[in-house]
């Protein structure tokens, strides 16, 4: 058993990790009881587990807790709250850009990381930035609109 200290949403928190190779996703969901990042595949193929680590959109199922130590981790909860939404979250609500909402975490986190680096992307850039984020409900057209809305907000 090893203690790992993670800095998540601006707070440092220490967890017990039985395995230094435990993916960050399990630390966030199981130890810290966060609901934003979702388990989708555990293979880095779908993007549902995306978090922002030091400004980059990262697959938390492919990042170990050891690698995540000492870095600034932001989850969907850290972006905003229902009362004070981040502009990307607000744009997703405004466009009603979800069906089941299971993939939404990855969409919002990837879009947020994109807009931080490229504040005024064109639609092709948004499509490319979200190419690794899968959605099964087929809500893509609304998600694209939402990201463009956030970019112009």
């Amino acid at each position, binding site marked *: 058993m090893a203690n790992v200290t993670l800095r998540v949403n601006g707070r440092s928190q220490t967890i017990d990790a039985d395995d230094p190779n435990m993916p960050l996703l399990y630390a966030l969901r199981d130890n810290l009881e966060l609901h934003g990042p979702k388990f989708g595949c555990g293979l880095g193929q779908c993007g549902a587990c995306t978090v922002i680590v030091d400004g980059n959109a990262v697959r938390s199922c492919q990042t170990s807790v050891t690698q995540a130590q000492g870095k600034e981790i932001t989850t969907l909860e850290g972006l905003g709250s229902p009362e004070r939404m981040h502009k990307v979250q607000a744009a997703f609500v405004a466009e009603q850009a979800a069906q089941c909402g299971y993939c939404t975490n990855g969409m919002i986190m990837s879009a947020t990381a994109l807009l931080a680096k490229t504040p005024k992307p064109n639609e092709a850039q948004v499509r490319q930035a979200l190419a690794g984020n899968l959605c*099964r409900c087929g809500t893509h057209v609304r998600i694209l609109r939402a990201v463009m809305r956030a970019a112009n907000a």
Partner: protein
Amino acid sequence: MNQMILERRQFLKGSGALFIAFTIADVIPAEAQTAPQKSLAADAVDSYLVVERDGRVTLYAGKVDIGTGARVAYRQIVAEELDTPIERIAMIDGDTALCPDQGGTGGSTGIVNGGMQIRQASASARQALVAIAAKTLNVPPADLSVADGTVRTRDGRTVAYGELVGGGHFDVKLDPKAPLKDPGQYKYVGQPVQRPDLPAKMTGRHTYVHDFRLPNMLHARVVRPAAIGATLAEVDERSIANIPGARVVRINNFLAVVAEREWNAVRAAKALRVRWTGGGGLPGSEGVHAAVRAAEVARNEDLIKKGDSAGTLRGAARKFAATYEWPAQSHASMGPSCALADYKPDSLTVWSSSQGTHGLRRIIGRELNIPVEQIRVIYMDGSGSYGTNGSDDVAADAVLISRAVGRPVRVQWMREDEHGFDPKGPPQLLDVRAALDASGNIAAWETEAWLPENTPNFRSRPMLAFLAAGIPQPVGQSVAQVQGNAYPSYDLPNITATVHWLKSTPLRPSNLRAPGKPGNVFAVESFIDELAAAANRDALEFRLAHLKDDFGLGLLKRVADRMNWKSRPSPNRDNRNGAVLLGRSITYVWYKHMDNRMALGLEVSVERATGKVRVTRVVAAVESGLMINPDAVKNQVEGNIVQAVSRTLLEEVTFDQSGVTSVDWRSYPILTFPDVPVVEVELIGTPRDKPLGAGEAASAPVPAAIANAVFDATGARIRRVPLTPARVRGALVSTRQT
């Protein structure tokens, strides 16, 4: 975990005129629900609606929101017919201890059936409230008016709903004659009200079943056999001895591991050394359609028999025939299925995203010999499921494991479990034949379809956990109405459509979205295009010539206008030499020959060198009946179109003799953002009509529309889905050679 009170959330109001924003109480967190004594009878108003003293209303619905956002529509219905502000209406869905059994949620019937029951319950409640008010105020009911949850006399006296019935019972049955609002007076129904659940879902505050935790709970993972139906020969428990808290649960061939921490359960399931024997015996996906054609037929059924198709075909000069093949497909939910169970000697509680919680409760009770009164299944949101994904199976997993370990258990499937073991949309095979008369019109049509049967009197799909554990359960298969739309939606003089109902199909089948219809329409509308091309006629003109229904003709013309359709036969002769070939198509379907009519225009580009097909634009005109929430309907139509594009271009479950081999997103890819088309949807509403299913119909015409547009672009006719680059490239090469 601690949201013990009803939350009221302020909605975003800055979205312009597109949406109507109300402050609606979000769904009550399942963990806060207690189980008061309450009516569950499907014909009692009290089963659906409870009015509190302060005027708050709670709707209890047996139909659930399976990720479609339907909850907002149910509340709009109640607000409308009960004449209550929508902000005061909370909702609980799919809790078997609280909600009446309205049947499973599927086939786009949530609003069509369940919603209309709720509408009648609301109108009946309103009628009862007016009757109570008449007595209380001592005036005739006809002298009372209702608005915003308050009954008013002509002389201005008022009494609120909460004062009339607050906390008490209505004690009345659903009255089929209770007066409904005139659609001209609708205030909530027909408005694009925003979904109340999105602010929490967009900010990570919502508790999906995957996020739910119970005190003293164990995490579990199921260890799947090396081959379907294999026997568990040996388990080496020492192989996980180094993983803290991990231990094995074994019931015959059902094998699982549990641990206090989730990651330890995950890695224990991977590390566990197991020896399996036997199992398998599948035909393999390579030759699946030969296996389908050779499968044992339980019975034959004529879906339609009009005129003399056989005689007309025999005597016809111009005859055509083709075979179309549809692959097995997966629900491929984004979130692997998850459930929790708490098995106690005298009670069992299950938290599940099943599309039919009451049905799941009956199955568990029957197979495990537990009186159903002792079982409570609580619905919680899952990942979108589109039919029957692993949600029911994982609940059975959780129940067996909780019973074995005597503690609450949470099971989440891994990606390879969901792709490998969800019940599949079955492979379909269709032979079609037709004759053209001298003027190039269809003189005769025949469809012969090979489809898996719904086992007669079959009550439920077998649960994987019960199969493996050796718990007896009914044997058979359930696929829903897979025969739908197996013949054209046009008026043809001589037509026969026959189904060979098959006793079995290679993988456990289910009712994957729009069951059977995308595959059937793929054959039917592709072949219509083949006939149009054979007659050297324009695809639109050919369809218009065979359709008598004015509404359908109107839909086709609207879509053609939007596409700036120029009349010419396919393929596009101007288009044969570029590196990228452009094509178009127009299709028509009357969903199930009784629900929505719809026309679909579609444009593709095809890369000659690679065979890669991109759907660039989709234009849809959909008959939508009474729309409770037009934006929610539109979202479903868009989603079905995009999902059907994915199913057509990319999706096939592959399997070998042992089991499914497409077990992740690389081996079973779905459409990604760079390839998503522009989607233009026009909904044609008829507010004085009944609601029609919102989404499924839009899936049906897409596969044929793509194949037809590829033919228009390239001259290559592809009769097998998916239209992968390799398949399209192969067809391009052989088309050039002929």
